[in-house]
């Protein structure tokens, strides 16, 4: 038999075995699918969470409340310092009047009360958005304080740090769990392939007894592993897709929507998932065949 014929033979034998032993093989397919599904969910989550944190970082503000007695020189110096710095991506002045309007929007119940006040107690402020590291931002803030026109500085950075830590813990955990699960998938496929060699040990022994080479005996099992792995990843992708668009139809808190549902897997991630499934299957199909002590001893 030529190599091509042999591969075709392996493939058909594998498909036949899988169809006949579908209860056995569905276990491996399910485990692989589950692993890749959870792995994929974590990748999806990681991607979306990272983007969300980036978004929040961009949204995070440093608010400078201006001292009421700041001189216009001081203010001009402050403004030009802010404009010329490369750290700030947005510099927006909020006058006491604007602050009051915003306040009324935020607490509509109090709009009347606020309007009644004899004097607007809200100070003028400048809202800044930053680019760059926390250290740079801190240095700039120090510089601002030095200028003297500043009454108070309110910085979202501390919270942002928490969110970033959360995102990085989530990513780390995702990688860890994903990795464990991929290994689990390979082991599971290996176990199923080994099992199927065990279930059919008599047949294998018979084939060997009548002169079949290891190549022909093992080939179908390797292909069986491969097919199971690929099948598992296809199932996982389908489930991810369904879950993604299924969640899309639900009422979710804005946060969850942002963190979960901004981006589906990219083409690269999709083919990566398929390749991982195939790899797990291939490894799973090969592991039990390397052992010289078992059925293939």
């Amino acid at each position, binding site marked *: *038999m030529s190599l091509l014929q042999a591969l075709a033979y392996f493939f058909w034998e594998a498909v036949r075995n899988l169809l006949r032993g579908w209860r056995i093989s569905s276990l491996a397919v399910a485990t692989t699918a589950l692993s890749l599904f959870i792995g994929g969910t974590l990748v999806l989550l990681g991607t979306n969470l990272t983007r969300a944190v980036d978004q929040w970082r961009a949204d995070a503000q440093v608010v400078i409340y201006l001292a009421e007695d700041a001189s216009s020189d001081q203010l001009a110096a402050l403004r030009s310092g802010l404009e010329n710095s490369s750290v700030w991506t947005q510099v927006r002045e909020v006058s006491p009047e604007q602050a009051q309007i915003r306040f009324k929007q935020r607490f509509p119940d109090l709009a009347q009360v606020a309007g009644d006040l004899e004097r607007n107690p809200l100070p003028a402020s400048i809202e800044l958005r930053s680019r760059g590291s926390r250290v740079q931002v801190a240095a700039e803030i120090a510089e601002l304080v030095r200028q003297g026109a500043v009454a108070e500085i309110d910085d979202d950075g501390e919270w942002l740090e928490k969110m970033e830590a959360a995102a990085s813990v989530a990513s780390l955990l995702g990688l860890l769990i994903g990795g464990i699960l991929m290994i689990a998938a390979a082991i599971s496929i290996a176990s199923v392939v080994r099992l199927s060699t065990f279930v059919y040990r*008599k047949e294998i022994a*018979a084939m060997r*007894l009548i*002169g*079949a080479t*290891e190549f022909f005996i093992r080939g179908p099992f390797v292909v069986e592993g491969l097919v199971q792995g690929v099948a598992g990843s296809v199932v996982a992708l389908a489930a991810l897709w369904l879950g993604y668009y299924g969640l899309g139809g639900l009422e979710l808190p804005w946060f969850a929507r942002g963190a979960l549902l901004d981006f589906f897997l990219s083409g690269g991630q999709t083919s990566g998932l398929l390749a991982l499934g195939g790899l797990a299957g291939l490894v799973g199909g090969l592991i039990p065949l390397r052992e010289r002590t078992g059925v293939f001893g």
Partner: protein
Amino acid sequence: MIEFFNVSMVYPGDKVALSEISLRIPRGQFVVLAGKSGAGKSTFLRLIYRAEVPSRGQILVNGRNVASLPAKKVPFLRRTMGIVFQDFSLIERKTVFENVTFLPHILGVDARTRRELAERTLKRVGLLDHIDAYPAELSGGEQQRVAIARAIVNGPDLVLADEPTGNLDPDLSREIMRLFEEIHLEGTTIVLASHDPEAQKEFGQRLLVLDHGRLVADRPLRVMETEAAVQG
């Protein structure tokens, strides 16, 4: 063609299955191997096709020491033989057709030729009707005949048959033994283990008798005219 030099086989647990067997089976001979249950007949055959490695001694098949054959070469040794196993060793999930033509298939024989081969061989053992059945759908005797068909389908140089008629009625047994005789006349070496006194009397050229692992008799056989006398 087959030579045993002081061959002993001791299974784990110190069970001596064969002890100090030396003999020579020339090419083209039809040897009948007799002996009580547990005498070592299956072990004798298993050593020849290297399902077992002798504890002591050497076995040469076509001048090659089968015990020292690397594992990778064993399949090629077995392909030159047709083997009928005492437990049939059929492949459960393959049909009779696929069982019989398994080796031709992996040797690259095309589907049409395989079908022809299978049909011709199954006709010889009277099983053409069951060509597409699975082993589980066959009676004991039918399974045995599938095993025989598989052993001879490729026209091997050497046929090893372990109790090939144990599940067959006397008439069919005789037919199958005639089939072996025919194959033998085509030049094939045959080593056939059998309890069947008919087989031992009517067929073969040489009788080996084992007893508790020892070779207790090795004598020429002639076809005797007892066939009519014992007809069932």
